[in-house]
């Protein structure tokens, strides 16, 4: 199985990353090598094996429905690259 440039471009868009043509070439190569290595997994028949989502059998961890103090508006926005009128600011969403 080999990774194509199209695969890389498709995945890059999903991950909101962009790469120059040279970088795409390098990724096809380096990601491809890791994926080929991971192909060894397909040797195993795991059809009857349950997936492990959590290594420990912890379940039903809940929090009481009791409000606690929030951050102030200033604290919430303190790290924001751009803010206005108490809000985070981004470029127009609908194009």
């Amino acid at each position, binding site marked *: 199985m080999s990774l194509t440039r199209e695969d890389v471009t*498709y995945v890059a*868009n*999903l991950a*909101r990353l962009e790469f120059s043509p040279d970088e795409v070439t390098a990724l096809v190569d380096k990601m491809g090598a890791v994926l080929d290595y991971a192909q060894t997994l397909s040797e195993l028949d795991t059809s009857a094996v349950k997936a492990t*989502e*959590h290594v420990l059998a*912890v*379940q*039903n*961890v*809940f*929090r*009481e*429905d*009791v*409000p*606690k103090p*929030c*951050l*102030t*508006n200033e604290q*919430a*926005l303190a790290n924001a690259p751009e803010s*206005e*009128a*108490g*809000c*985070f*600011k*981004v*470029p*127009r*969403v*609908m*194009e």
Partner: protein
Amino acid sequence: MEYEMVIGMEIHVELGTKTKIFCSCPTEFGQDENTHTCPVCLGMPGVLPVLNEKVVEYATRAGLALNCEIAHFSKMDRKNYFYPDLPKAYQTSQFDLPICTGGVVEIEVDGMKKDIGITRIHIEEDAGKLLHESAEGTLVDVNRCGVPLVEIVTEPDMRSAEEARVFAEKVRNILEYTGVSDCKMQEGSMRFDVNLSMREKGATVLGTRTEMKNLNSFRALVRAVQYESKRQIIELKKGHKIIQETRKWDDTKGVSSSLRSKEEAQDYRYFPEPDLVPIVIEKEYIEKIKSELPELPEAKKQRYIDEYKLPEYDAGVLTASGVTARFFEEAVSLYDEAKQISNWIMVEIPPLLKEKELTMENIPIKPAQLAELLKLVKDGVINGTSGKEVLKEMFNSGKNPDEIVKEQGLSQVSDTGELEAIIEKIVADNPKSLEDIGAGNEKAYGFLTGQVMKATKGKANPQVANKIIRDVVAKHLG
């Protein structure tokens, strides 16, 4: 060719918890932007979610009320996509193992009963709000991020806009009754996504469907369904294929348009949320929640018919919303005249609410006040006409009915002496009526009663007045 529409729905309902689903921020509506946030709901680096126990309880309650199976084992998953209202760039939701499955809701349209299947109910978090979208940019408010939601997914069982509306109203009603949500449409506590396709009547395969998102009123739901079904029929008649797409409903213009997405087909990359552990619900827990479930609309309606001897119509109207039913029950517990109370709630109150742009949720009078007013009418202290005036004044001033009656001097005149004098004069002034009665025209009595009411400004006790009129007329006619 005759077409039939096939409708399935996804209903998002905000749960009425005090805090958000994964953090302890309050869920209050209408606060200043970005004042109900913390590192968790802001999606800051390294923070972790902890599930609100009430969310599980409310979802279980909703599931039971909609006749679902409650899953013994369910889990949370991540739905990954980028959007400025989604701080973590994934929505924590449930994918393959939702908390409830396989429910059913019975609806009645045009006297026909029908079951609408509920495929599943899952829990998830709400997103934030985008404000003031302009060329300048968009502002993001995170307050709503993490408010708990249930998403109710139906089978494609509905066949008309009316069925969709009745179903949606019934679900709203049930959820409001069970107390899992206030279902305030105007605050976006309940939103509908509609999947609609058309097919030749009698066909078994489904046509290509479109999806309309975020309809937030029953009116919008009905209009969107009507518009979209017509649009699809026109397309099909032209021989065009329906494109599977998401469409945006514009309620002001009354049209839907394609949300032409430049994006690739969505690839949400769902996977199990490693930061949250599975939810395991035991039978005992389900039994406990079941035993705490309040009486649901169906049962309540039947009880109103049996216990209060109300007509089915009245019982239906009164139980159509939990708030109305609660108002009625409180009034009837203070004043045992169910039908009278029912009449006033169904006939007199709605126009007053409408005038003031209020609903039963924020009605300015208390059930006890209505009960008191109706007692005054029943006891003959005031007549029905005055009663309506008093009710109006109660809406305006919030004063008690007895106060208003006193202030405005609305007590009925039942004093026979005073009435006799008035009536003598009226009969004397209207010889024509006397003549008519003498000739056997009973209708003339009504005219005389009207004159008495006019003379007393409506305060005459009608029963007493009628008796005196008959006595005086008899005397004159010899």
